[in-house]
């Protein structure tokens, strides 16, 4: 399950806000451009209408003029005054049109000027027409004057036509130039608008994709949350813990379902408040919970708290709780976790009790040791000393049987001495401080042989030893090990045959390890002490290392049955091993495995 990084989602709103602002700006731009474009279109059409209106009026003026002229000519030729009507009404109508033209071009000085010129021409033309009419009616009819007037009228008409054309052209020019600017704009705006539209569309699509992706991520993280939520709920039940959430800002408290279960009630069966929870806390421990709450308010932290609750069914349970504040952008939430540690607590208590008992028995053992080492030895020592006094001083006064009894008492006392000494040695091997030092085993062996020198000499024993390594050992214990093993070999020799004792040493490779060495990674030295003495049945090989185990009658071979137990203990103290191989009548071999 891949968890979504919280940052990805948090960044999205900024991106979306940016996209929104950008889109808004573009829309504003596009609408303003469209508005402007529309405005220009309206303006153009108005201008066109305007031009046409002017043109219309101009043509109207021209046609009125021409009608007047025709009327005048008709009258002159026919002298029918009815025909003169158009001539008579023409000036008023022309003037009306002229006024319209004037108002149409009111903001154009050039055209006004042109119009004024036109008016002058027109006025002159009417004057001429009047003159022509006069001259046609004149008696006598002056043909020359009439002809001149006609010709002048003809010329003037051409001028008027030219002036009208000029005004027309000018207007057309205006229209054309306006058309050009408009066309320029009209061409530019659709392209830019289109581009902007495409761009906006692109952004909208991108935003859509981003939102879609975010939604997907959100959905996925929601799913994960759901799984985590369920896992926690499950874990709460399995792990016997609960979670409480307290929002510092809203002072809202939430208890998980398992809190209710741990209290022995139905989930969410009471409102989650401190007060309601405290009702379940053991009366003697309420102050602990209250203090913990206080410290959350005051110091904004709380240390692990241990307290008891009383479940609905009356059962007392032990709770350990810890708390922690977590922060997000706006909130500080205190997460409290409580765990039912009843089983753990009870087993701890039991363990403590057992520890106490153990300590007690260790103390007793120690005092037993003291008794053994001092108090038991003292009377024994006195018995032995008194025996030695009697057997020396009063030997002559005692009967033969008395002497025999005395000797038996002496043997028993000596045996007790050995037992006590060996027991002490054994317990010291157990207890003594294990101070390791790199030591030459040859020296330790030499010292051991020296300690046994008298015994060796008595038995006329032959001791042969390989060179031994220098390893990390507890020196006095290894010394004791050699004394015990060699002493053992001397003790269990064949009567009358000088003992032959061999001490050999080899460094083992892991394929040579016996089965009981499990850790193949370690290096071991194998030191063997072998003799050609009495030997023993292989079936006893394990037993001989047990405390007080003896394979022989104690009269035959005096001993405490502790010596080999001490050897085993020493090997164990060195994280090593010891084993024995025996063959009755052929001898015994003791192998000690010590870590190199």
């Amino acid at each position, binding site marked *: 399950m891949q968890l979504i990084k919280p940052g990805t989602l948090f960044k999205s709103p900024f991106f979306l806000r940016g996209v929104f602002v950008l889109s808004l700006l573009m829309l504003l731009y596009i609408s303003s451009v469209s508005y402007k474009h529309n405005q220009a279109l309206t303006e153009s059409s108005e201008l066109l209408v305007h031009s046409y209106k002017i043109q219309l009026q101009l043509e109207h003026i021209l046609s009125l003029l021409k009608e007047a002229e025709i009327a005048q000519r008709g009258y002159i030729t026919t002298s029918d005054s009815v025909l003169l009507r158009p001539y008579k009404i023409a000036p008023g109508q022309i003037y009306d049109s002229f006024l319209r033209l004037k108002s149409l071009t009111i903001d154009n000085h050039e055209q006004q000027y042109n119009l004024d010129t036109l008016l002058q021409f027109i006025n002159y033309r009417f004057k001429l027409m009047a003159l022509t009419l006069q001259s046609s009616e004149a008696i006598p009819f002056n043909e020359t004057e009439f002809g001149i007037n006609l010709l002048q009228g003809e010329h003037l008409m051409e001028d008027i036509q030219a002036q009208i054309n000029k005004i027309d052209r000018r207007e057309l020019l205006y229209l054309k130039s306006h058309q050009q600017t408009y066309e320029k704009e009209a061409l530019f705006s659709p392209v830019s608008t289109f581009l902007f539209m495409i761009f906006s569309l692109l952004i909208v699509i991108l935003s859509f994709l981003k939102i879609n992706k975010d939604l997907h991520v959100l959905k996925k993280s929601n799913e994960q949350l759901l799984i985590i939520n369920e896992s926690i709920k499950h874990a709460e039940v399995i792990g016997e813990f609960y979670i409480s959430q307290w929002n510092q800002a809203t002072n809202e408290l939430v208890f998980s379902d398992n809190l209710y279960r741990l209290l022995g009630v139905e989930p969410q069966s009471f409102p989650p408040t401190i007060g309601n929870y405290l009702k379940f806390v053991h009366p003697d421990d309420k102050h602990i919970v209250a203090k913990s709450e206080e410290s959350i308010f005051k110091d904004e932290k709380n240390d692990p708290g241990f307290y008891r609750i009383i479940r609905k069914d009356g059962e007392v349970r032990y709770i350990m709780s810890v708390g922690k504040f977590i922060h997000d952008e706006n909130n500080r939430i205190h997460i409290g976790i409580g765990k039912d540690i009843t089983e753990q607590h009870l087993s701890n208590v039991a363990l403590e009790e057992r520890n106490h008992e153990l300590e007690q028995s260790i103390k007793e053992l120690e005092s037993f040791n003291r008794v053994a080492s*001092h108090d038991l030895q003292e009377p024994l*020592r*006195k018995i032995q*000393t008194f025996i030695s006094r009697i057997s020396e001083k009063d030997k002559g006064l005692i009967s033969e049987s008395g002497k025999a009894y005395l000797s038996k008492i002496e043997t028993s006392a000596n045996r007790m001495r050995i037992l006590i000494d060996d027991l002490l040695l054994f317990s010291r091997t157990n207890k003594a401080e294990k101070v390791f030092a790199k030591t030459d085993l040859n020296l330790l062996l030499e010292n051991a042989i020296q300690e046994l020198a008298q015994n060796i000499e008595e038995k006329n024993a032959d001791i042969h030893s390989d060179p031994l390594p220098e390893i990390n050992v507890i020196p006095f214990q290894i010394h004791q090990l050699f004394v015990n093993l060699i002493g053992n070999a001397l003790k269990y020799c064949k009567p009358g045959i000088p003992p032959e004792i061999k001490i050999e040493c080899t460094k083992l490779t892991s394929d040579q390890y016996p089965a009981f060495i499990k850790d193949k990674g370690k290096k071991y030295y194998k030191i063997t002490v072998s003799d050609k003495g009495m030997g023993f049945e292989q079936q006893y090989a394990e037993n001989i290392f047990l405390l007080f185990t003896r394979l022989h009658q104690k009269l035959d071979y005096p001993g405490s049955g502790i010596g080999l137990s001490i050897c085993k203990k020493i090997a164990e103290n060195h994280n090593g091993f010891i084993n024995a191989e025996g063959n009755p009548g052929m001898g015994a071999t003791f192998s000690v495995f010590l870590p190199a």
Partner: protein
Amino acid sequence: MRPIHVLLADDDEDDRLFFTEAFEEIKIDTIIRTVNDGVELMNHLNQENIQIPNILFLDLNMPRKTGIDCLLEIKQLPHLQDMAIVIYSTSSSEKDIEDTFVQGANVYIKKPSDFNSLKKILEDVITINWQYQTSGLNRDNFMLSL
């Protein structure tokens, strides 16, 4: 040769008996005196005008005042600095040996369980070259064994 003054502090009557009997059989001119415990020992040593013993045999395990307590006190008393102190104990525990050595005892002997051995070890102690023994304090020859 002047007799050697020997003082034994031991609460055990039998041990005092063995001790004096052993010295009776040792052919060395000694004057033996015994006290029954630590308190008696310190009272004796603090008397004025007494013969300061040449050698003090000190048992460790005594009621009222132990041998270690006595040893500590003696080492504080200037007039007893020339007296040799021999620890004479049933125990041969490392702790006792170490403690008494550190506190300035000269020799440590373990009470033997044989009268002849007792005679032998006491004779050895008496005939030690005390100048050598006291001048070069040595942990190795502190514990005297047969």
